[in-house]
């Protein structure tokens, strides 16, 4: 497969998908506000940038416009995906895990909280993330951190209490931010339509970054898991010529396998990237599946007035996949009676559940005021008969 052909195929797929969803993206005119990259970087470092760093920050968007593979690719999302895939591929190289070919990657508007691996005709793969997934993951992780009060130990280390409910009674900022994110994604189709904000402390930024890395590396690792597992292998057999279409049943065993590989790669990539223990890496699948479940519930609640009426297509349910992964994770790195290494991820999943409990009334109120889902979500809200067919 030539990279050029794969990128052409991706662009065609993006164009057809946007047309189907009735969306006209305009990334050509997209640009960051002047100085935004400098401000964000200074916030994260807690000091002014050096002149060299300022030049690097200011050059960031320009470089990504030139590098993105198609005109439909969001330059910032593509830059983040490039970093994620680099970490995953470093882990693969370090462990002598071969790939049939290096995948190309990008984003796709799916109308679902989703990511996918696509077999390119003629050979090779595309790893695609839902085009708003990275923004959604970032804002969800920020809300989680806002919900958890910071603690400081005597030795100078810091942590975050995961006892969210009591904290939220005193300060509902996290609930407000979480609700804004949910409604922006549901109603505008863009979580970035929610009011944007910077976290107040570098400690919060660090933990948010860890959680976001864990979620994103799990998702990307899952997609690489499909390639490593040869789950789309028939595409290679077909590459010699054009073949008739076949009805392929959705292979859930392969999903569990890709989940497992995704967690494994996430743990190793987190160690490789920032030298953190498995505890943080395991937060990735916990937060992802919790957020997925909440989006399902919120979409159903806004559209039908019943959070269990319809699902966006999750089967087996995300809680089954999460339970399976919890068993696998303990086998992967061992566990102890205190809950290590899964305790942290479970605690953050519980924080998300609490945030949803407190955000739910706002979704109900929005529905009462006639607010409805963005059209993109309704393509995934299939009839029960259609869901059976998948």
């Amino acid at each position, binding site marked *: 497969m030539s990279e050029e052909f794969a990128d052409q195929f991706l662009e065609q797929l993006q164009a057809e998908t946007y047309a189907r969803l*009735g969306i006209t993206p305009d990334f050509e005119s997209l640009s960051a506000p002047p100085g935004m990259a400098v401000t964000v970087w200074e916030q994260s470092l807690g000091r002014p940038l050096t002149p060299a760093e300022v030049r690097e920050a200011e050059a960031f968007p320009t470089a990504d416009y030139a590098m993105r593979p198609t005109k439909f690719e969001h330059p910032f999302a593509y830059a983040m995906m490039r970093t994620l895939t680099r970490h995953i591929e470093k882990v693969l190289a370090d462990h002598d895990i071969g790939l049939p070919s290096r995948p190309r990657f990008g984003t796709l508007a799916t109308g679902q909280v989703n990511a996918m691996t696509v077999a390119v005709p003629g050979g090779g793969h595309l790893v695609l993330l839902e085009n708003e997934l990275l923004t959604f993951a970032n804002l969800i992780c920020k809300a989680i951190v806002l919900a958890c009060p910071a603690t400081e130990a005597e030795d100078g280390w810091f942590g975050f209490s995961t006892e969210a409910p009591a904290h939220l009674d005193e300060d509902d900022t996290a609930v407000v931010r979480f609700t804004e994110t949910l409604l922006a994604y549901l109603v505008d189709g863009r979580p970035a339509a929610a009011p944007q904000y910077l976290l107040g402390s570098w400690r919060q930024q660090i933990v948010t970054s860890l959680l976001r890395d864990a979620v994103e590396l799990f998702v990307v690792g899952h997609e690489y898991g499909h390639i490593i597992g040869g789950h789309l292998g028939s595409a290679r057999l077909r590459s010699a010529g054009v073949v008739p279409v076949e009805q392929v049943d959705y292979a859930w065993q392969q999903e569990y396998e890709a989940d497992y590989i995704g967690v494994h790669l996430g743990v190793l990539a987190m160690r490789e990237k920032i030298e953190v223990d498995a505890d943080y890496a395991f937060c990735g699948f916990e937060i992802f599946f919790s957020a997925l479940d909440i989006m399902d519930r919120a979409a159903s609640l806004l559209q039908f007035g019943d959070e269990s009426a319809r699902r966006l297509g*999750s089967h087996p349910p995300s809680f089954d996949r999460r339970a399976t992964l919890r068993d696998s994770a303990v086998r992967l790195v061992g566990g102890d009676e205190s809950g290590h290494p899964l305790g942290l991820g479970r605690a953050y999943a519980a924080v998300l559940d609490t945030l949803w409990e407190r955000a739910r009334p706002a979704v109900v109120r929005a529905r009462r005021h006639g607010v409805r889902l963005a*059209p993109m979500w309704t393509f995934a809200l299939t009839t029960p008969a259609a869901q059976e067919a998948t």
Partner: protein
Amino acid sequence: MTPDRDTRRMLIVDNDDVDFARRTAAEHDVALQRVEMRGLEPVLTTTLLLFGAAAAVGLVTSLVDRHRGGQIIDLRPGTPRPVYRSKDVIFGLVVIFARDGRVTVEVKEPAGMFGQVLEALTALLGELAGAGVADIAPAVTEKVGDAARISTESTGSQ
């Protein structure tokens, strides 16, 4: 005459329409390949590639689109599915359900214009959710111009 295989076209269809697309392609000597995808969540559409002579590929694309039927846009509050294609409505028609009736849009030249009209109407969804016929009809007329005939039917309910 052996058809050339130079033309390739991508088609994204509902999973229910895959069998029809496969049969239609075979009838017109168009090769069809399903693009394999694995999603973290199930992928609810199927992406197909059609290969064949340009005219044949165009015909199959058109027939599959016709098979999907007309368009329903349901703007009534609490509707289970606001936007979908329906085989109960003939190709070329768009039926917009409002809280107090319905607006029917008949595309004059559906073979060439149906897609463009749908794109224009989909863009109106956010503005018109929950609106009545009296608001929807002029907005639709302004959006599609002479490309379609528009008729309204009021039920009187609010």
